């Protein structure tokens, strides 16, 4: 099987929930993105959804490094893409493009085997501990309550994560709202907060200690800058809860100082940053260091497939238990608080071409690359 080329389609959909954290309370939309369709000479199409629009990088990398190659050789191709970016490193747009292409390549490998991705990776059917995430920092208390209660009731979540950082009193009050909603499913809800790299380490320590007087936290996410392993370590040494970070790092090697200095208590990986290939490398490293791994949010909750082969997979973030926007569908169900992947071949992402055509209108279509 040979790769013949890539088709990228920018799209924009309006969504009820917007991804807003302490860094940008005005928010960015998670549903502004790019559909990637990697074509082959055997008719299989590899699909990935990229949350940033990088059509130029996707086309260049595909033309120069992937076209004519066998997509089943995906780990070698990931290395080839990373090596080609050696000088500047796999950062920024290049990172996003490599990661998305790696997801599409794995999709092809699984489709060639006519099996779901979790099986191609070698996993038993995944049952990944899911938690509710991605709640709008600006949602009103009532809206937060309604949304969380609905999520808890319908999908059985036992854990929830709040974006915090701008108003300590509100953060504490809203953690209480989440906890209350989750009590429907468990006597001990797992509560997490995400500071989004907004605080200095000492600010984070003060903030978390205050919260910990009232609430037991499972982890604090990104309580210092992503590269500041000394700051992350310092926070970990000064609070009870675990420090979690990693989704914003660019490559497995960037985790070296974090592992070496024991700066992380929970290692977070995201295929949108490091591809599936890089995510599995980091998960194996974490296993060697006896550290649990958590998976970030993912389009169609596709990360559930990866959890199947991570020996120390702790949990994964779920923003949309059912998909908003309608440009694509996935094959991961959330039931009883667990993410369970189905049997659809590949990663389960299927593009609704009609909806995509509608969502890629006007200015979005200007960036379209055929």
């Amino acid at each position: 099987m040979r790769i013949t080329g890539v088709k990228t389609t920018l799209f924009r959909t309006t969504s009820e929930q917007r991804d807003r954290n302490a860094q940008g309370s005005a928010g960015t939309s998670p549903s502004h993105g790019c559909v990637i369709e990697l074509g082959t000479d055997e008719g299989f199409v590899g699909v990935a959804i990229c949350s940033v629009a990088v059509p130029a990088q996707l086309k260049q990398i595909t033309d120069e490094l992937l076209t004519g190659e066998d997509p089943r050789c995906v780990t070698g191709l990931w290395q080839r893409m990373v090596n080609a970016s050696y000088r500047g490193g796999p950062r920024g747009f290049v990172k996003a493009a490599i990661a998305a292409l790696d997801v599409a390549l794995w999709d092809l490998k699984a489709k060639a085997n006519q099996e779901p991705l979790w099986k191609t990776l070698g996993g038993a059917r995944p049952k990944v501990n899911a938690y509710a995430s991605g709640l709008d920092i600006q949602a009103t208390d009532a809206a937060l309550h309604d949304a969380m209660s609905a999520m808890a009731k319908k999908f059985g979540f036992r854990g929830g994560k709040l974006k915090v950082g701008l108003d300590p009193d509100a953060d504490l009050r809203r953690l209480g709202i989440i906890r209350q909603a989750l009590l429907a499913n468990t006597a001990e809800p797992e509560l997490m907060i995400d500071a989004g790299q907004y605080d200095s380490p000492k600010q984070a320590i003060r903030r978390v200690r205050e919260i910990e007087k009232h609430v037991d936290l499972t982890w604090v996410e990104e309580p210092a800058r992503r590269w500041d392993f000394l700051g992350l370590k310092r926070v970990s040494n000064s609070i009870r809860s675990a420090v979690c970070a990693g989704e914003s790092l660019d490559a497995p090697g960037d985790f070296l100082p974090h592992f070496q200095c024991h700066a992380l208590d929970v290692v977070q990986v995201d295929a949108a940053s490091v591809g599936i290939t890089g995510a599995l490398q980091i998960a194996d490293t974490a296993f060697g260091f006896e550290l649990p791994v958590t998976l970030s949010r993912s389009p169609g909750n596709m990360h559930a497939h990866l959890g199947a082969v991570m020996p120390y997979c702790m949990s994964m973030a779920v923003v949309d238990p059912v998909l908003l926007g309608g440009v694509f569908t996935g094959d991961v169900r959330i039931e009883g608080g667990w993410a369970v992947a189905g049997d659809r071949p590949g990663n389960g992402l299927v593009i609704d071409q009609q909806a995509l055509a509608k969502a890629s209108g006007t200015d979005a279509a200007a960036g379209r690359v055929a």
Partner: protein
Amino acid sequence: MKITGYRSELYLMKANRAVGDANLPDGVDLLPGSILYIETDANITGISLGFGGGSVKTLFQAIEGADPREVVGLWIKMNDWVHKAGNEGEANAALSAIDIALWDLKAKIAGEPLWKTLGARAGRVKAYASGLDYCLSDEELFAFYRRMAELGVDSGKLKVGLDLQADLRRLAIMREALSVASARPQLMIDSNEYWSPKQAVRYIRQIEEKFDLVWVEEPARRWDYDGLRLVSQQVAAAVATAENINSVADVYPLIANQAVDVLNVSALHSGVTGCRQIANMANTYGLPVSMMNCQANFMAQVAAALPNHNMMEVVDPGREHCLKFSSRIEDGYIVLGDAPGFGIEVDEAILAALQKNPPVGKGRFPFPRRDGAARYIVPPAPGEVPWRRGP
């Protein structure tokens, strides 16, 4: 597809020549062999070479009836299964053998060589020659490395540790033999845990006055991360180690304490899955890994797909009596074919004959440690090795 059963065959083989090191300078030529077959309801059988002893029966309960394509999930299940006593010893050998046979199955089901199943772009692995040669005469030593050099192999690893002057002489012989492949052959030495850390530093520094060494292997005990780090800090060569540990869990203290520069990995590192875990952990730290020697070089299938593999050990003492395979060494690389799985088939008639009439030879397994280790060096006695003549 379901796993339905297994069969384990043990046998003895006599190698074409003896192999030896600092602990067994006189060498052995009788080697234990084992083949594990894992059967499925689709009439496809997975094969694993070596190590599949009695504990397979215990662990098989964990995988019976499962889909072999879920091999990583089954690895996790087996690793949890042996939790209390640990993934060590016999359990580790069985877990490793099962995992290897399952990966063989996974690739065969996909109808492709394992290197492709694992995602590699090519079935090609750089080789280095390793004579396991303490028991070889100087002439035999030259002949082995020259034969390898004529296949394009430009790197060699000498067994050392008991006699500095002899080791220096034989390093020069190895380099000369390899010089037809490269003007600057890569030289390695291996003392198989015979020295204490400071003995190692003294010995290696004297060698380094005359030779540029790429790595020194097992210059201290396998678990002694302080000692290994001490050696690494005091010699120019990289410290290679890990061949005698079992899993990524054992690699943790070595990597975290900066005790290792090159990780030796093998089928016994908890199978293909375990090998990949170790390589991935090493890769995060920017460390290379090197695959150990094995029958028919079958683990080259795995090495080809590791992101940080440097070169694989090739001994070629003649251990493939009952095996059919298509890999070959060409231009210094192990070149793998397109046969599905590991690309190994068993000649059942030869296997049965070996079991019926076991060969006679010199064997001492499990391989023992030599007197004096880590305290004082006991040089080969006259006549113990061909290069130290009897009285």
